[in-house]
């Protein structure tokens, strides 16, 4: 079957969840990716929704992070104090998903402002729970579409810390007692990146049809490329069917 770049991105993100246990879920792309993973590579994945739901069994694709369909039939509903305090800060979350308006080569993220903080060109939503996920989830997966405007040399505001200045990132996290080890994967519409020993993004896999030139055109720095760069396996018919028929039948996120 043919597939869109968004579909490839979702499928690639879902596959990264193999072997993971507890995932913090936001709405939109991460929600679809996580639910696809649960139906395919990670049947035992436990989902924790930011709105305070554990063990959700949504009867439809949730339209917002607090859709009533994630509550009915769930295992547990908790206050946000407990959700953020006991589940996230308490260290129970293995993987948190983040997106942002800007990312730098070390995986630091901006979802607060474009321009100066006091007089912004564009006022973005702000942290929400993002800075908490970045610090307290054991690992962070990033899903973002690539462009020169979003993959930048310098982010305008650091909302969610990634590997900080690169080499020193792991040390700072350890010394300050963070539970999270930071971003481990960035999945885009063009490829999949991991982080090298300097804490810098490195292109490890190119999606079918994408080229290194297309990747370079869609980011503001010269990316490191793995010597063993591979091509991402295209979405299988099963994966596509699940996305199209069950997870996003109206194509809200995947067109």
């Amino acid at each position, binding site marked *: 079957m043919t597939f869109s770049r968004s579909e490839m991105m979702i499928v690639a993100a879902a596959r990264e969840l193999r072997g993971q246990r507890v995932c913090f879920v936001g709405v939109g792309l991460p929600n679809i990716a996580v639910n696809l993973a649960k139906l395919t590579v990670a049947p035992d994945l436990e989902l924790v929704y930011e709105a305070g739901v554990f063990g959700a069994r949504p009867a439809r694709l949730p339209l917002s992070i607090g859709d*009533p369909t994630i*509550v009915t*039939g769930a295992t547990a509903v908790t206050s946000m104090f407990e959700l953020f305090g006991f589940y*996230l800060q308490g260290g129970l979350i293995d993987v948190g998903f983040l997106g942002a308006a800007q990312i730098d080569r070390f995986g630091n993220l901006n979802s607060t402002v474009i321009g100066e903080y006091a007089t912004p060109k564009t006022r973005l939503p*702000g942290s929400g729970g993002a800075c*908490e996920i970045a*610090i307290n989830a054991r690992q962070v997966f990033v899903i973002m579409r690539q462009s020169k405007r979003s993959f930048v040399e310098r982010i305008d505001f650091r*909302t969610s810390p990634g590997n900080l200045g690169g080499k020193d990132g792991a040390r700072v996290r350890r010394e300050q*007692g963070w539970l999270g080890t930071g971003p481990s994967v960035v999945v885009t519409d063009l490829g999949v990146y991991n982080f090298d020993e300097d804490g810098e993004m490195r292109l490890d896999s190119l999606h079918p049809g994408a080229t290194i030139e297309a990747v370079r055109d869609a980011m503001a720095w010269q990316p490191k490329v793995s010597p063993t760069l591979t091509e991402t396996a295209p979405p299988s018919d099963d994966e596509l069917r699940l996305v199209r028929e069950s997870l996003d039948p109206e194509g809200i996120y995947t067109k």
Partner: protein
Amino acid sequence: MHDAIAALVRDGDTVAIEGFTHLICFSAGHEIIRQGRRDLTLARLTPDLIYDQMIGAGVARKLVFSWMGNPGVGSLHAIRRVCEGDAPTLELEEYSHFGMVARYTAGAMNLPFFPIRSYFETDLPRANPLIRTIASPYGDGEVYAVPPLKPDVTIVHAQRADANGNTQVWGLLGCQKEAAFAADRVIVVVEELVSEDVIRADPNRTIIPGLIVDAVVVEPFGAHPSYAQGHYDRDNRFYLEWEAISREPATLDAWLDEWVHGVPDRAAYLEKLGAERRAALRPSASAPSGSVDYGEYR
């Protein structure tokens, strides 16, 4: 609602209409607009459409928040208009979700601060100097502190309460309890007024005691276009429409004229909304919790 807002919400107050996606009391926000309150400080994790409407209507001078967007849809344009560019007219005080929850909790507990493991190596403490570090007295490093938030008024929507304000909620709990205990005055707005016996049959379900409640208002569908678990669904069509309505001051004003100033109260709003649209938001079937036994002990 008219009387509760008239008596309990004053110009210059800090007002929290809480509820994380669930049970957002739009009807109270509309009444505040109708009564022309000014210079409010509005606090909420997610300003959502209700604060976009209120700020678009000019009731506020300051916003205290952690995530500003139209969830699952896009932007809050009325708010963006007054905080972008060279001369923002709305003061922002910005935290993260847990920071806001911790602030309400400190307020409810009469603590001078609440410690959390957020904000490390971010620009947020620079943007908001009230986010400060605090050293552990056990020699094991620093965490961040946020100050207590004690609203003058907290407004909570709920499925049910008795006449004394003993309030029960199921589904997402957000931080309504913390925000209510932190507040000086509390208004509870309910889908259903029930007898004391209904509340007393299941005391573990009570999240807010009448002890801290100043007014109980009965307004079914008062959280529309947000939702009330078991009563009605989120009216997602309206959330989508808001994107266009809020994009220009003229369309926003026209909407306020029609749907807020143009109706005297929630009942009129609901009539205008129409029975059909309301019916379409009802759950497709019931999903009963089942009953547990507390036992009689004589």
